[in-house]
């Protein structure tokens, strides 16, 4: 099912409003947690208040547990989630600058905005400094470039670097978090600064929470990697039912008509090898070789919500296989060119002239269409030809989109 935007459940145009809402929520929670007070924030460094550590560690653990379980239940395709590349040098230097700035200024960037929005002057000064830093970095980007992109390693995850299994790594992370919370609590009680102590409602004890979190950690450590079926997947009987009839097959004439009329919502996907594709491909076709169709980067292409994908191969066999797989993966509106390019050429260019005695007009129309199509294809002028069939091709009307914001 997820991520919601790549899988087309939420329209990409909603990205900005969603970001705005999440930002509002984030700011609200920062303020709620008391993060607009710089005294509370820097408490971590002086040992009287570890709320920053607790909140961010909790957030990280919650997110990890959520992602792992949603992946396991098939609700989230983790291979589609964007992961930032790693640049070690800039991370180290940036972290050091951030730490020193945090200690001196009493804010980190997000909390400074939260505090600034409730009118704290020191936070506003901090935000001003932030923009000066951005300006310096932007102006002298060339000088910093070596540092900025130094020690690049691609999307490596910590557990693969250490050589641990994902479940085991998360298990230890949760154990570390539990110990960190215990140590933080101990330090808080030692360092006395009563005025700044968090005025939380005290539980009798955290025994149950610790026990449950430990149980979750153990579950994650022993959970099988991933179930075979993901949420989107169709089970085999449904794929089989769909493959029984010819509804997913497109005739040569239909494809020719669509190419010649340059119908917008038709997407030709060539599943042959790259070498074959480079030698020849139909006008407007894109290449996704058969062994690569399950790659996450093509999910959006196969999930053509607005139009039709037509899978093409030499004889239609590879295209049929590719169709079975993408249909299993839950993508709709995919079709196969029946008989492939071989039948396409044969149908269009070697069409036998029908017997003039044949009464069915469709056959004569089809023959005439084939002849005209052949002529146009040969001349390489894939422009308008008018078919005898009066087929209404739905043309996308291009309306100017106007988004106006108000206050």
């Amino acid at each position, binding site marked *: 099912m997820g991520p919601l935007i790549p899988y087309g459940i939420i329209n990409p145009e909603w990205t900005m409003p969603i970001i705005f809402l999440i930002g509002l929520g984030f700011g609200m929670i920062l303020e709620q947690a008391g993060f607009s007070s710089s005294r509370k924030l820097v408490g971590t460094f002086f040992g009287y208040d570890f709320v920053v550590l607790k909140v961010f560690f909790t957030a990280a653990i919650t997110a990890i547990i959520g992602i792992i379980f949603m992946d396991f239940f098939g609700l989230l395709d983790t291979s589609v989630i964007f992961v930032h590349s790693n640049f070690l040098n800039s991370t180290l230097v940036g972290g050091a600058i951030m730490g020193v700035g945090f200690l001196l200024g009493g804010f980190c960037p997000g909390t400074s905005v939260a505090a600034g929005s409730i009118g704290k002057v020191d936070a506003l000064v901090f935000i001003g400094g932030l923009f000066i830093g951005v300006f310096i970095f932007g102006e002298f980007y060339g000088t910093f470039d070596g540092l900025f992109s130094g020690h690049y390693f691609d999307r490596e995850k910590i557990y693969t670097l250490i050589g641990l299994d994902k479940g085991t790594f998360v298990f230890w992370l949760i154990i570390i978090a539990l110990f960190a919370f215990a140590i933080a609590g101990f330090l808080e009680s030692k360092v006395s600064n009563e005025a700044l102590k968090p005025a939380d409602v005290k539980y009798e004890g955290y025994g149950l929470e610790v026990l449950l979190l430990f149980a979750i950690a153990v579950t994650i450590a022993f959970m099988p990697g991933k179930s075979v079926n993901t949420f989107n997947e169709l089970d085999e009987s449904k794929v089989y039912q769909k*493959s029984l009839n010819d509804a997913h097959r497109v005739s040569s004439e239909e494809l020719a008509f669509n190419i010649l009329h340059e119908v917008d919502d038709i997407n030709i996907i060539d599943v042959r090898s790259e070498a074959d594709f480079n030698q020849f491909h139909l006008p407007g076709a894109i290449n996704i070789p058969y062994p690569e169709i399950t790659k996450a980067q093509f999910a959006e292409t196969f999930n053509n919500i607005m139009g039709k994908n037509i899978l093409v191969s030499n004889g239609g066999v*590879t295209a049929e296989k590719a169709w079975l797989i993408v249909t*299993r993966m839950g993508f709709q509106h995919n079709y196969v060119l029946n008989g492939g390019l071989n039948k396409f050429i044969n149908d269009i260019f070697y069409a036998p002239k029908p017997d003039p005695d044949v009464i069915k007009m469709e056959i004569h129309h089809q023959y005439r269409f084939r002849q005209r199509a052949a002529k146009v294809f040969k001349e390489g002028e894939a422009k308008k030809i008018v078919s005898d069939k009066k087929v209404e091709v739905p043309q996308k009307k291009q309306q100017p989109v106007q988004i106006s914001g108000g206050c």
Partner: protein
Amino acid sequence: MNSLRSTSLVIFALIILGAIIRSLIPADYDVTAEETVSHDAKKAAMSYLAFYKKYNSKQINQYQIIDIRDKYAFDKDHIPGAVNIPYAELLKKSGLSQINKKPVLVYGQQEATSAAAKLMLFQLGFENVNYLPGNFQTIKQFVLEEFDPVHSFYSAEKKQYNYQNYIRTNQQAAGQAPQKQTDTPTETINVSGGC
């Protein structure tokens, strides 16, 4: 505050319980889509040459040959020793129960359908499944009646024409025919922000 606490505890307990139950439910497929594709891309269909050799040396008896055409076509003519399971019944209980542990060889009316049958069976856990390229007519013509070495590696998937001689794309034709300039309506997006 106490109700919040107990609610969250119950939710956590439910998640753990769900994970345990979920791992007990058997999956529909035995292999993932990725594994299917990578296996299938490596293992090609059985060539007519290999089939001919096995057919002559009676090694073919080790295989269970499945004819997935309809009953009428099967009754007319079929490969000796083949079992008829029409594609429409292949995945039903009546069809699957007829397939035993032997390596399976599928052929049919169309190569695309034979390949589809192979893929479906492979995803259901039959590891040793293969299919014969072409259709029954080509198998009969090139192998059964008289083996034709020219067609040792016949496949409907093979390129039969030099496509580029038939269809010229716009780039190729650019040198010969003057390109017409057409005005395409441009989409105007007007985004105006608030204050």
